[in-house]
């Protein structure tokens, strides 16, 4: 199972901080996962149809949407960071 995490306003909009999910059929990279989430419609579509608004980490390192994913990966979606 993939472990998906949502932070900041993504979590607020989706109403959840994370979920577990089997690797979607034929998904090889982050972009494939985004397409699967987008296909859910509703708030998911509102967010994942605009990937330029979100940042991704795969296994706790920043990643691009082209980054490969595999079963058991931890994939986090969040807005650009604003700490410091």
């Amino acid at each position, binding site marked *: 199972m993939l472990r998906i*995490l949502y*932070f*900041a*306003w993504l979590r*607020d909009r989706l109403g959840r901080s994370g979920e577990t999910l089997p690797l979607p059929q034929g998904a090889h990279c982050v972009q494939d996962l985004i397409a699967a989430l987008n296909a859910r419609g509703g708030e998911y579509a509102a967010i994942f149809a605009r990937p330029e608004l979100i940042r991704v*980490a*795969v*296994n*706790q*390192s*920043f*990643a*691009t949407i082209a*980054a490969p994913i595999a079963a058991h990966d931890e994939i*986090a979606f*969040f*807005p*650009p*960071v*604003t*700490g*410091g």
Partner: protein
Amino acid sequence: MPRVTIRVQAEAFDSAHETALLLRGHEDVGGVAAFTGIVRGGGGLVALELEHYPGMTESMMRRIAESACVRFGLAGCTVIHRVGRLAVGMPIVLVLCASAHRGGAQEATTFMMDWLKTSAPFWKREEFADGRSAWVEARAQDEAAKARWGSLAACDGGKKN
């Protein structure tokens, strides 16, 4: 080996105590540069709520700190970032850099803040006196500030094994 201390905590920090810990046993240090970020008031702001990504935050902070130690030849550095609700006037973040010479310590502090602001997974939500609340948006100028340091193999989007 440089002495690197990383912490994410709700509690306040004591910069004098942290400086003493950083310096202990280091006779080759000529200066410690520090930066303390404070919740700035204005526009009816009451507090910030700081959220982070546990695990990734600490590992990014450590990578940034270790890069600064190598790049600026630091004797050590300490980075403490608070999370949770922080009222106006409260300290949010402390960066301490100890070095043989002043310039390295001061530059390293700027470098660490520029990277922290753009590469450590923290998010701020603002709470206002009228009850409004809003997530802070990232600023393009923070990315520009980071960019002047060039790429940082250990921090710049590399996939961790």
